[in-house]
């Protein structure tokens, strides 16, 4: 069961200079434990902190030394307590020695596992490496690190070093930092190690691999340059979306006394005849059919099997082409990586030669791939070189799937140069845009690239696990707000914004954004964005553009009226023209929404939102010429409020001048101009009583 279990030691520097990022470290480490609890609950973890006042480890008892290294948690199978341990890391008071800590960690792993679980032993060091390590008793520091690294390699241990280089002012320690960097880099040379340096707390969250997925090849075999020239390659996934955990559906049917209840829900699929929905068609009477015009052509699975397209497993080169022929947006899927068969030196050289030549010539290769025997389709893709900068890492290729002719959508859009002069930016505007594009820089020279995908964690997952932990303690815990570190991913960095205030202000001044008077749709939307923009004026510009970008990507189709943005949802729905049903669906949904809001109000707190919805509904009904829908609804709502003792809402509506739709607004209305307010005129004396 626990064949793939991992033994992990977390080594965390808690010295005085680390205090500022300890909250993030606690977060990311507990996330790691939590994911282990969900995905690999047999893994074992130990926690060691260094830089503490106290000393508590086996080595100090046995041989002495190793001060200020504390074993917070000896290696054990992950459990809830470990999460708590991670969330309450002590704050240290003395500069820690990371090399001592590494040795303590190694010692723990060796004592616990000896020669077992080779390759599954891992040390994860988080430090800012700002303090010098102690000089060894004999030899140089370098020699000492080499010895440790060799030991590590001998025991099949891996080490991940995350070196946090915050925006610290301790530039004086430059030489120490350089020395430490050099020492840590020895690990990368001698063992399976990875050292990353991060500068912001956001990338710190992304730098630690919180879930350990053992990579599996999707193809091992020949890369055929021609029928006579083949290179042995292995293909792995390079990117693959880590999905939101699939939660099981919960059934509360089981009696609470049943301790063994699974509370799970099974899903049963039934196929029913369209003519007679009460009749269930059993599997033996079903057959797969494919549309051919209006007909459905039945094809038995045996037939289908017999005629199915079944190419031979192979990866063949079709040719090389200029990199500029393959545009970036044609990449279709997640990315694969081709590496040469690690045991085959010649293959490594062949891949290296090709990759380097491709890079030099700016060429890419086009491949036709069938990964497995029996696969029923072929994949055409592009191979791009990935020349390694590290001496001990081989060159490789990235592989991206390209579309077939059938997959391409050829939509025509107006050429910008043909647009009227009024929408063409003038030179002043162009200059402002240039400045903005230059200055709102996420990858400034000499600093860490912000929001690098490789170091940017998924805020949704982080939030989910955080909430999961809270819920395990208090089942009714509310969804926690997104913390500031993660907000750096979803919102512009206030620091960047304030640094570039002048540029942004200038950009705002140059361009004139107005809501389209003919289409009053988005007023509320923009207003809402304005009020919610937490950085006031600066962000508004960005948001203005953002909203507008989204409306232009016609990919977003609204199908229901949501809780958060009922008005835009409604507007999107009612203006959908792909089926006449959307109008009635939208109106129906909006009515329910209004009822919900009014009914669930507490001292009128939802009234403004309900009013917003009502106004949108009214406008929609006028545009769609459905006055009755609205008028009847308003009557109904009015009666409902009277019955439910919610007449305050009627007053509220009357005060906001909500009227029935009149004949002048919509032909079908039976309400004359004068009678539009009749409902609330009646209502007012009623409610004032």
């Amino acid at each position, binding site marked *: 069961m626990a064949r793939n279990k991992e033994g992990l030691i977390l080594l965390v520097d808690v010295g005085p200079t680390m205090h500022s990022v300890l909250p993030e470290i606690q977060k990311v480490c507990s996330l790691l434990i939590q994911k282990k609890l969900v995905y690999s609950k047999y893994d074992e973890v130990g926690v060691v902190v260094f830089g503490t006042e106290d000393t508590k480890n086996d080595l100090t008892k046995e041989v002495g030394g190793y001060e200020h290294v504390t074993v917070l948690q000896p290696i054990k199978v992950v459990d809830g307590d470990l999460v708590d341990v991670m969330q309450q890391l002590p704050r240290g008071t003395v500069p820690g020695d990371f090399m001592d800590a590494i040795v303590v960690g190694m010692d723990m792993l060796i004592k616990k596992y000896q020669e077992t679980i080779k390759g599954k032993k891992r040390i994860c060091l988080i430090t800012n490496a700002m303090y010098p390590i102690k000089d060894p008793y004999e030899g140089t520091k370098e020699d000492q690190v080499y010895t440790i690294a060799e030991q590590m390699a001998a025991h099949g241990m891996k080490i991940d070093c995350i070196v946090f280089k915050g925006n610290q002012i301790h530039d004086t320690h430059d030489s120490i930092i350089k020395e430490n960097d050099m020492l840590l880099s020895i690990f990368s040379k001698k063992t399976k190690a990875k050292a990353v340096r991060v500068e912001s707390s956001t990338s710190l969250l992304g730098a630690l691999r919180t879930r350990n997925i053992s990579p599996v090849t999707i193809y091992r075999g020949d890369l055929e340059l021609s029928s006579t020239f083949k290179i042995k390659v292995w293909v792995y996934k390079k990117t693959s979306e880590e999905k939101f955990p699939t939660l099981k559906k919960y059934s509360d049917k089981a009696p609470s006394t049943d301790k063994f209840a699974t509370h799970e829900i099974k899903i049963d699929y039934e196929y029913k005849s369209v003519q007679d929905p009460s009749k269930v068609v059993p599997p033996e009477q079903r057959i797969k059919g494919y549309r051919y015009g209006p007909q459905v052509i039945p094809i038995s699975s045996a037939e289908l099997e017999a005629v199915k397209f079944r190419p031979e497993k192979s990866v063949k080169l079709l040719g090389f082409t200029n990199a500029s022929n393959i545009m970036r947006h044609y990449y279709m899927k997640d990315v694969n990586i081709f590496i040469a068969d690690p045991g085959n030196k010649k293959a490594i050289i062949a891949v290296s030669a090709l990759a380097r030549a491709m890079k030099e010539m700016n060429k890419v290769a086009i491949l036709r791939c069938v990964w497995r025997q029996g696969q029923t389709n072929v994949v055409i893709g592009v191979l791009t070189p*990935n020349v390694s900068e590290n001496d001990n890492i081989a060159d490789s290729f990235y592989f991206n799937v390209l579309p077939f002719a059938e997959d391409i959508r050829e939509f025509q859009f107006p050429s910008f140069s043909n647009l009227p002069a009024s929408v063409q930016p003038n030179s002043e505007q162009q200059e402002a845009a240039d400045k903005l594009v230059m200055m709102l820089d996420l990858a400034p020279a000499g600093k860490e690239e912000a*929001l690098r995908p490789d170091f940017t964690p998924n805020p*949704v997952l982080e939030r989910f696990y955080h909430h999961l932990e809270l819920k395990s303690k208090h089942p009714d815990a509310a969804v926690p707000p997104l913390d500031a570190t993660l907000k750096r991913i979803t919102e512009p960095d206030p620091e960047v914004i304030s640094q570039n205030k002048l540029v942004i202000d200038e950009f705002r001044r140059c361009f004139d954004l107005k809501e389209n008077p003919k289409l009053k749709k988005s007023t509320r939307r923009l207003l809402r964005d304005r009020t919610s923009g937490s950085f006031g004026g600066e962000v508004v510009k960005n948001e203005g553009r953002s909203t507008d970008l989204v409306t232009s990507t016609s990919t977003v189709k609204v199908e229901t009226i949501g809780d958060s943005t009922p008005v835009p949802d409604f507007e999107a729905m009612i203006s959908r023209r792909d089926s006449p049903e959307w109008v009635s669906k939208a109106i129906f949904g909006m009515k329910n929404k209004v009822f919900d809001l009014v009914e669930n109000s507490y001292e009128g707190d939802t009234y403004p939102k309900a009013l917003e919805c009502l106004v949108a509904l009214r406008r929609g009904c006028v545009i769609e010429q459905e006055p009755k829908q609205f008028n009847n609804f308003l009557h109904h709502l009015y009666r409902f409020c009277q019955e439910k003792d919610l007449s305050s809402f009627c007053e509220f509506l009357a005060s906001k001048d909500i009227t029935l739709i009149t004949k002048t607004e919509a032909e079908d209305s039976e309400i004359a101009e004068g009678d539009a307010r009749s409902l609330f005129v009646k209502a007012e004396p009623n409610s004032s009583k």
Partner: protein
Amino acid sequence: MDMDPDDVFRDEEDDPENDLYQERQASKELLVYLVDASPKMFNITCPGEDQKNESHFHVAVSCIAQFIKVQIINRPYDEIAICFFNTREKKNLQDLNGVYVFNVAEREHLDNLTARFIREFDCVEESFNKLIGSEYGIVSGSRDNSLYNAFWVAQALLRKGSAKTADKRILLLTNEDDPFGNIKGVTKLDMARTTLQRAKDAQDLGISIELLPLSRPNEEFNVSLCYADLIGLDGDDLAQFMPLAGERSFICADTGALVQEPPKRFQIYKNEEIKFSTEELSEIKRVSTGSLRLLGFKPLSCLKDYHNLRPSTFVSPSDEEVMGSTCIFIALHRSMIRLKRFAVAFYGSSARPQLVGLVAQDEIVDAGGQLEPPGMHMIYLPYSEDIRLIEELHSETTGNMPSATEDQIQKATALMKRVDLRDFSVCQFANPALQSHYAVVQALALDEDEMPEINDETLPDEEGMARPGIAKALEEFKVSVYGENYDEENENTAQGKANAASKKRKVASEDALVKCAYYDWPKLADDGKLKDLTVQELKYYVTAHKLPVAGKKEALISRILTHMGK
């Protein structure tokens, strides 16, 4: 098949589900009714609603009348024509005998329904004999073929409108299951063949032909006589293939009770079930207020080849909601192209909120029109969790990784120059899997005997690769990497592996052969005792007899029995 005509009509036309289903394919329908008006339609009767016997012709006409009344309300954009065949008079554009297209003034033959049309059609029966008349169109001695003519007229009517935007149908109402029954010999075959061809031609043009047979009281309408071929189905299976509606039901695993779609989900965590409501889950996913929020810009070199998860989305400006958007968009677009930068934004979609890169795309036009529209491509960027560190997986710990020498790179470069797909474009390949699937469906639909061969365009150009220049470049590169004796070495390593594996297999099979001999297989089989053996024991037999060893116990037993010939 149920032959009650009323039922037939209800199924076909009055079922709203069915209509809805069609609607997905095309929004509009062009429909031609072909009504048999032969004397047989008038002579044969069936019991009607009020127990009175009614002629088939009456049933057909009144059903159409009813249907068009519904249709004019529900689907006013559909276009309808009604044609009688086997008539005395003729009225059609082709001036063919025996076909009469019913119509009213100020209306094209195939057109939207009008009130006047419906009204006049209501009384068509009364004046039928006077105006149109009934007469057998297919009689021996004449070469006239009214059914053929009718298809021709209907097809001509349906020439209007594109097959892409409209569903085209011919509905044939008749009680004659053997229209060429009166004819003998070669003429019959010939007529049947030409009619069939005509019907096939219509189908090729995207017109579907449907048959609404009216059966005589004591005699079933035999579709297989003639019409089965005509509408492209085997007689027995006719109309059996109806799409099914899938339905899910949720069953509580503990109690077996049927439950509604549950509002709560749970995750096992620390041996507890942690429950989440759907609202909480959507709240968790809502991490951003704006839908697409600009965060900043980066040089294009920061967008790596592995920063990709899904097909990109195209973004184009619009002034529809906010005036001035296009202007800003164009300004940023130009700046981004000129400065070779892309924008990083957060896309707060409800399914998966994520970082996206917006890459400006300049318009590319050639003689044929727009190749790439101007706008920005939204590239979905992975998170750190989505990126796997494969490169480090096999890093060398004992020294440097071998890398290519200058000479080897040179040879690779030379090869690249030779094998250059100069005008490669991503849309040059059709998907062979899809092509073959459609071809198979078509072949089955049209009852073609031979399965089509699909030309797989994605195969490499072997001939081109064998051209001397390329072959030489390949060989040179190969030699520079693998050395002269590559083949030998390669084979050695391959053989080494194969030897180990095959040795193991050989040992296993020898072992099995020995063990296999301990059992009296025929006797075990005869006594039905095979099932008492373990899978391991059964495997001795299959291994010893070189049969496939995969599968469950039952599969193994049946394999053994088959092998013994029992």
